[in-house]
């Protein structure tokens, strides 16, 4: 029994962290107009680390390193609130490698693995309805209307949730309708789409849909865990340097206790996410339970932590120029997508629990 990352995963974690620190340091992401360019640069850089190929099995020309390894990258991306399509490419490639027929694989696998094609996941149809049991669109329909599709504007293909399971719709069969407002989380712009279903290609049934959905929930969870921990770390550093009443604010017990409570909340979260990813990798019977609960728990705690971080910073934390709000909004986004914590806790309560 060894509940830890492998040496290989740790080296990979360091490599991603170095890359992100190098490219996204300071408050560069707070300049909205810089975000698209940074997203493109991040995609390129993560391609060089082969992130899009992580999840696809070796037999299908991927790296076969599992969701836990992808989650390691995901946590780092959350820590830096990094804009990128690499994680979506990795999961999209996995879905096509696992459930696509030979034509689909021939068409999409190579560009996805290389990070040259981008995926949008088209799930939600109405407000607060995200999960496979709630999809009402059907392969029988001529069109499907989907909302809140991350990365829709750059997507080359859409993986679409329908009653029957999943299907693939190409870019030219989609008419996008952008949101009226800029996105809350600027690192993850999204749009709705009206999808022509005539040429939709089936991509696995409902079990496949849930397995994909579980993977995406786990990635949202670890992303939030990363953002929450980064918000704590920023607060700790700030508390050591900001001086009021002639001493660092971190010497006031009220600040110490607030930060200690944040640590007790957020530090353990990543390990639950690791477990959820591991359970998914080995297809444990409780994998759906831990995916749903980890998503609910991690995003709830991350938002709570990031909000407390703003309070601990005072006025500077309330500004657009200071990057803390990026982490808060990142966690809020993770919390809002792919079903709310309340819905996910209710779901988990109906699923088989881990044996103890």
């Amino acid at each position, binding site marked *: *029994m*060894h*509940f*830890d*990352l*492998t040496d290989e995963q740790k080296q990979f974690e360091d490599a991603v962290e170095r890359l992100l620190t190098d490219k996204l340091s300071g408050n560069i992401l707070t300049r909205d107009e810089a975000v698209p360019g940074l997203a493109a640069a991040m995609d390129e850089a993560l391609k060089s680390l082969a992130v899009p190929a992580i999840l696809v099995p070796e037999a299908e020309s991927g790296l076969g390193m599992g969701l*836990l390894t992808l989650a390691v990258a995901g946590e780092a991306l959350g820590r830096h609130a990094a804009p990128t399509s690499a994680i979506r490419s990795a999961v999209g490639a996995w879905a096509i490698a696992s459930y696509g027929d030979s034509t689909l694989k021939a068409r999409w696998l190579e560009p996805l693995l290389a990070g040259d094609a981008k995926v949008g996941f088209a799930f939600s149809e109405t407000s607060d309805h995200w999960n496979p049991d709630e999809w009402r669109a059907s392969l029988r329909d001529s069109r499907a209307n989907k909302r809140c599709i991350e990365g829709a504007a750059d997507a080359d293909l859409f993986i679409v949730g329908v009653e029957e399971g999943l299907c693939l719709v190409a870019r030219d069969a989609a008419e996008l309708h952008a949101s009226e407002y800029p996105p809350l989380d600027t690192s993850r712009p999204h749009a709705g789409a009206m999808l022509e279903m005539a040429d939709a290609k089936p991509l696995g049934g409902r079990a496949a849909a849930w397995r994909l959905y579980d993977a995406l929930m786990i990635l949202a969870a670890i992303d939030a865990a990363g953002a929450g921990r980064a918000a704590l770390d920023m607060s*700790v550093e700030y*508390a*050591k340097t900001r001086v009021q009443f002639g*001493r*660092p604010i*971190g*010497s006031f*017990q009220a*600040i*110490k*206790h607030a*930060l*200690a*409570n944040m*640590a*007790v909340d957020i*530090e*353990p*979260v990543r*390990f*639950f996410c*690791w*477990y959820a990813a*591991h359970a998914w*990798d080995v297809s444990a019977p409780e994998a759906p339970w*831990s995916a749903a*609960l*980890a998503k*609910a*728990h991690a995003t*709830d*705690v991350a938002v709570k932590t990031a909000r407390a971080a703003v309070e601990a910073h005072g006025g500077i934390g309330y500004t657009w120029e200071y990057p803390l709000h990026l982490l808060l909004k990142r966690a809020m986004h993770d919390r809002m997508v792919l079903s709310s914590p*309340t819905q996910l*806790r*209710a779901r*988990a*309560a109906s699923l088989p629990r881990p044996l*103890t």
Partner: protein
Amino acid sequence: MDLGYSPQDRLFFDEVRAFLDGTWTGRLPKSGKPEPDFVREFRLLATERGYLYRSIPKVYGGSEQLPDPMRGRIIRDCFERARAPMEVPGAGMSMLIPTLLEHGSESQRRMFIPKTILGEYRWAQGYSEPGAGSDLASLKTSGKLDGGEWVINGQKIWTSQAYSATHMFALVRTEPNAGKHGGISYLLLELDQPGITIRTIHQITGESEFCEVFFEDARTPADWIVGARGGGWGISKTTLKHERSNIGGVRTLGLLESLWRLARSIEINGRPAAEDPVIRDRMMTLEGYVQAQLFCGYYQFARTVGGGSAGMLPLLNKLAGTRIALEVAQVAQDILGDRGMDLPVKGAAGKRNPAQWLNQVLGSLALSIAGGASNIQRNIIAERGLGLPKDEAL
């Protein structure tokens, strides 16, 4: 990431289980009752096999095994499943023996460890005083050397199990001119003597687990001091280190499971409380915290096995566990509703559902006080874990 046993672990697991199948047929007596002879005999056998008292050298009655957290864990798992007794419980085993092994003299180890292991010597922890709780180093109980003996005067309070203990390890001020921390020594003493009066204290649960201990010219031999004169503060820190090194997690899981049992056994609006949307949501929220803490414990364990450090995580365990237990108590109250008006408080620990719950709701509060109050835990996390400036006054 690997959550299974390795082939060697599996062999060891089978070996321990076979041993238990062959030797443990008894039932554990209720806590508080004296232990029957077959428990003692079982412990001796298990020690011979190297399953108990693993960190204690053979000359002191232990089984002297190489440190191996994985084996330790397998033994604990197997014993718990078979409901077989492990080491004698109490402060003697968990705090005093590690302290003697680190700081005691050879004759102290020979005199105290074997009998403590057998349960003949039962120890009370004499640290807190009426005026010295969180600010423990302000303690006043005094010790003066007088003809080959320490003469002790003063008072300890909140001393767990003092009424049934035979001995005490105590922090005593022996160097009145040496400053707050430097004046304290770590003394051992017998409780059954004319200079000592023990009075039990009636607790919030109606039970009497802790006591007041009064010293009026109580005596103990001059060489029953552990470490040097005035070195007691540092030594008490090693005791606390051992107290905290037991990684939490499993206990909160068990606590939550018993809450699920309660929630399934009591109805709200004509269906089990576990299916009430509000109760269920709160329990699943707790479940998230418990799972996070559980796997955080697994990770700390993996780091220990690998000889590495888990950073600040061990400092978080006590507060994390306390917060979970306090929230379990809150949810339990909402499940019980006004049924709580007809439940026992005193003597209800260990009873069946739902009778033990009022006792548990109240008892959970001890966690936020005993062994370092939660605010003190927060100070420790902030200063030692997060590296925030130390408060020099503390």
